[in-house]
């Protein structure tokens, strides 16, 4: 592990890092000067970030530091919470996400939650739900999409004979993969995952990590995780949050092996958090 002295020089990287955020015409999502408030409490401070397409971006940081809040601004889920305010710029393919039709935003930016939340419907109907909602009625199209999504979520072989069974009959890990399939069915351009494995055992977790790796070419993945090994295994880039601020955002390897900030170093080496 690098000593604090060895880290100092790398702080020079910081301006370059912000540079790379600004000069990123390729970015799928661009976030500039983002501030977020729950009533009078400011949960996010001046976040700047560019999220690259077809990459996995991970957010780490101690709990309560605003990771979920940040994730939920990206599909405007925070709007369902009363008395919140967002400032700054959020661009999806250079389009202002904050002024787009909200249902359209959420179709394009899908989300998987910490606790799996299958609807009390059949496995098939769960995956088909997003298609129905978006006006797709043709049976063959829906059936194809359901199968494809379940395949991408590495669940098809396990459920292909029981598609009409209630989703509640599945195991925890299967339910979370079902929720991923459900999100994938509407072919989102970005998939947000908020600690999707926090309630799962290591084997179920590994399955999800593998499938996320497989679907990188389909969508842009942003994952919040409290598990640093998971971020290190999965992510191309990692952002470290602390008290509502983005302390550092860089290549995952850099974050874990040669962090540019003292706080990051302390966190990834387990000195706090």
């Amino acid at each position, binding site marked *: 592990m690098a000593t604090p002295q060895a880290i100092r020089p790398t702080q020079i990287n910081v301006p370059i890092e912000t540079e790379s955020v600004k000069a990123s015409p390729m970015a799928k999502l661009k976030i500039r000067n983002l501030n977020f408030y729950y009533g009078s409490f400011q949960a996010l401070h001046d976040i700047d970030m560019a999220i690259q397409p077809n990459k996995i971006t991970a957010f780490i940081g101690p709990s309560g530091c605003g990771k979920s809040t940040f994730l939920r601004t990206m599909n405007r889920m925070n709007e369902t919470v009363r008395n919140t305010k967002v400032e700054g710029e959020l661009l999806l393919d250079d389009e202002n996400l904050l002024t787009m039709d909200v249902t359209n935003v*959420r179709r394009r930016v899908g*989300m998987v*939650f910490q606790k799996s939340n299958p*609807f*009390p419907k059949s496995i098939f109907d769960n995956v088909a*739900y997003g298609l129905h*909602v978006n006006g797709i009625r043709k049976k063959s199209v829906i059936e194809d999409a359901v199968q494809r999504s379940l395949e991408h979520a590495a669940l098809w072989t396990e459920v292909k004979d029981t598609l009409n069974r209630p989703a*509640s009959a599945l195991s925890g890990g299967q339910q979370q993969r079902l929720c991923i399939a459900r999100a994938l069915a509407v072919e989102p351009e970005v998939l947000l995952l908020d600690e999707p494995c926090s309630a799962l055992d290591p084997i179920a977790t590994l399955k999800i990590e593998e499938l996320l790796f497989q679907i990188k070419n389909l969508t842009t993945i942003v994952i919040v995780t409290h598990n640093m090994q998971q971020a290190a295994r999965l992510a191309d880039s990692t952002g470290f949050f602390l008290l509502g601020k983005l302390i550092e955002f860089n290549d995952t390897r850099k974050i874990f092996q040669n962090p540019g900030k003292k706080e990051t170093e302390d966190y990834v080496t387990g000195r706090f958090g």
Partner: protein
Amino acid sequence: MMVEISRQRKVVNAVMLSLSGLCTVVVIAVLFFILGYLLWHGISSLNLDFFTKLPKPSGESGGGMANAIVGSGKVLLLATAIGVPVGFLAGVYLAEYSGKAFAFLLRYVVDLLNGVPSIVIGIVAYAVVVRPMRHYSTFAGGLALGIMMIPIAVRTTEEFLRAIPNSLREGALALGATKAKTVFTVVVPAAISGLVSGMMLNLARVAGETAPLLFTALGNTFWSKGWLAPTATLPVMIYNYAIAPEEDLHKQAWAAGFVLLTLVLLINVTARVIIARGPASARR
């Protein structure tokens, strides 16, 4: 000292337990006593005629209550058609849309409405429906009972929808569903068994109402001529027969009471079964 206290607790515990046990037995006994009593007095009139024939003119014995059974069915159908949709939609609004302050107000108004005595609702239905239309009618009776169903329908809907975890709403919204889509294709279906059984209990509750029917549906010794004409109903029939002088009519009143109670119990039991068999999300 400690031993003293714990012994005292045990005694109190034992007394309370046997007391509440006794009261439970009393509750059950009352129900079966009523059922048995009705059956005992009404059994001689409980025959096929009772369900298929019209009442005989006064003085003649025999006959039945077919018109009252059908009349009650029609009144309750109409009451459901009015009370359930109105109450359900208001409940949906209360649970899913309204702000805190307005919800408080609405809930308060609903509770007040629930407290309005049934006879008052009957008088109002008489004044605003029967008088202007110059006719007692099935419609007026159904409307009165329908209004009586609204408060419970609102509160049942609100409670069952609130019991649905927010994570389901978020799951639907995150797929691009509108708020209305989310409510009607995820939240309501998740609560459906609770909602259906709640509405059935609500119906059972008004099925025996007599006072509001006395001056709305009135009564009829023949088949009702339609929704806008007066009709016989079981509760009013019981009332009329019970205060009539003829012994035979008393028996028929007991029989009608038995039929009505059985109907109410059946609705109740069915509702409970639906709740018990419903999806876990609704059972909670």
